[in-house]
């Protein structure tokens, strides 16, 4: 079996090329640099085209709510004159219940256009439901590959709910136990079926999210006369942030601060059978967010179109207990039952608002549907049954995998800033490692410029970073 595994992994690039219809080598320079913008232009779609594609299947144009009660609560905890107005873009009203419908809409449209009979996606999250829903609308077959159970056959309730939803839309759901061999099964299915790889990380997938950023700017101008001061984006694989930021820029909102937010799962190993059911978040967490930010090409395509460090102005983390608390507060105070993962940015926005001026605006950029398995009660009782200690107290004391501390008062909700320069250096270091193993090639000017673009910094800063890395 192991041999079989290695043989198939060896054919990875060939399978990928066939299943996404993109020859990534066209954008390569031969060393570190590749032409990201050219890749987005050549194989992506224009904003207008995507708006049309998404309108065909009822995706996008989601409502924007002003969270007046949560803003009042934030102001009651903030110094005088502080407490920005908090808005929320209700992406749960997309057909499959999350913003992922935007990514799936373009991917599935593209698959249909190229004549594929079906689509496959490897995802345990909302993206699976989104691909299944879009495939149903465009009459394509759909297979979703999920990492679902630990070795005791115990499944994350949220993932089991996602399997149900995918099957509700007519998809076949292949469920797997914990492990990175999921990618092997995924490749095998692509080869066996000849279906399209509806990867989350292709240019069409990411371009599909640009409409979110664009709508956000338009709606805020309608509501307040101005672009938002800050947008908080839940960050995992980086596509949500990349697409939204690009859409904002295309709408002319180039002064808006882009804030990434992930839930802190420090210390939990993502490929560990034992840790799998110790976490209460299946996405939006640091276990995906940090590695995908510093090594974007770790995804299931040769070059990921999700490159969040190009657009990020700030990256913060919140704890699981804080997100659960805000999920409950959103239902209790605003009459909106949503979440869980989308509310990571809600928890962050609630805190950040308190240090912004009253006349400023901050956006929670997405929501997702909730229900059996996804609601905070099944999430928390699942955690409790798995030996996680749940209490009311100071969330600062929370230890991922051991405890969940729900804040005993909303003033205890805080954000932790990650050091962006450290993340930038890490991205550069990983890029240099890649080149060093390939015949010790020299860095070109193009590479330096590329690394500057990749890290939203100047070439001068990149050179200084490199000096620090290679003393």
């Amino acid at each position, binding site marked *: 079996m192991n041999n079989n595994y290695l043989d198939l992994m060896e054919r990875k690039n060939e399978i990928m090329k066939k299943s996404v219809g993109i020859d990534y080598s066209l954008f390569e320079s031969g060393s570190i640099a590749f032409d990201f913008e050219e890749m987005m232009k050549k194989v992506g779609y224009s904003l207008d085209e995507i708006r049309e594609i998404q309108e065909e299947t009822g995706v996008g144009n989601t409502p924007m709510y002003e969270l007046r009660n949560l803003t009042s609560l934030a102001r009651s905890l903030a110094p005088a004159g502080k407490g920005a107005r908090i808005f929320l873009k209700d992406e749960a009203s997309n057909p499959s219940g999350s913003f992922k419908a935007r990514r799936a809409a373009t991917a599935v449209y593209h698959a249909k256009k190229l004549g594929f009979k079906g689509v496959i996606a490897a995802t345990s999250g909302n993206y699976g439901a989104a691909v299944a829903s879009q495939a149903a609308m465009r009459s394509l077959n759909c297979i979703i590959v999920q990492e679902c159970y630990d070795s005791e056959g115990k499944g994350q309730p949220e993932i089991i709910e996602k399997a149900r939803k995918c099957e509700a839309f007519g998809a076949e759901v*292949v469920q797997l136990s914990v492990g990175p061999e999921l990618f092997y099964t995924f490749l095998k299915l692509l080869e066996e079926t000849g279906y399209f790889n509806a990867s989350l990380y292709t240019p069409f997938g990411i371009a599909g999210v640009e409409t979110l950023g664009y709508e956000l700017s338009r709606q805020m101008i309608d509501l307040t006369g101005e672009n938002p001061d800050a947008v908080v984006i839940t960050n995992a694989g980086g596509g949500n942030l990349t697409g939204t930021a690009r859409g904002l820029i295309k709408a002319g909102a180039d002064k808006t601060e882009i804030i990434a937010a992930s839930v802190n799962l420090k210390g939990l190993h993502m490929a560990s059978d034992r840790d799998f059911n110790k976490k209460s978040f299946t996405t939006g967490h640091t276990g995906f967010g940090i590695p995908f930010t510093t090594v974007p090409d770790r995804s299931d395509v040769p070059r990921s179109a999700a490159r969040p460090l190009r657009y990020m102005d700030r990256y913060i983390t919140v704890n699981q207990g804080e997100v659960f608390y805000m999920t409950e507060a959103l239902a209790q*105070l605003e009459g909106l039952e949503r979440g869980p993962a989308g509310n990571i940015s809600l928890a962050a926005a609630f805190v950040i608002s308190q240090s912004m001026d009253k006349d400023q605006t901050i956006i929670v950029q997405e929501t997702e549907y909730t229900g059996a398995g996804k609601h905070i009660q099944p999430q928390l009782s699942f955690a409790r049954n798995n030996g996680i200690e749940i209490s009311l107290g100071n969330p600062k004391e929370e230890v991922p995998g051991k405890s969940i501390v729900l804040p005993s008062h909303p003033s205890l909700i805080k954000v932790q800033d990650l050091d962006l320069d450290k993340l930038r250096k890490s991205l550069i270091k990983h890029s240099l490692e890649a080149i060093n193993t390939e015949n010790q090639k020299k860095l070109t000017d193009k590479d330096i410029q590329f690394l500057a673009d990749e890290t939203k910094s100047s070439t001068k800063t990149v050179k200084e970073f490199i000096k620090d890395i290679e003393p």
Partner: protein
Amino acid sequence: MTKGGIMTAKKGDWVRIHSILMEAGARAPGIPDDTAKVPYELWDKGFLISDKADIGEKVKIETITGRKLTGNLFETNPSYDHNFGEFVPEIVMIDKQLKVLMGEITK
């Protein structure tokens, strides 16, 4: 490993199968020790092609996308059993406090 309920299935029944793709100790290189020590498993659903089978028996199915695969019969008429979990008392404590805080703000 099987799941309770109907212990047999007949041709055409909607069933769930289970199979082991990689045995414990023969997993992909570079994975955490605890994961390497357990098998890599798969579950899928489809219509039973075999005439009749008992739970645990090797069977052939046709999935909803028309793929044919074999595995061990795991469940007949598989149902979803995820729900809203057990009561978590801390949640109503949050609710109560939020009501009080909002009462003070709007006073």
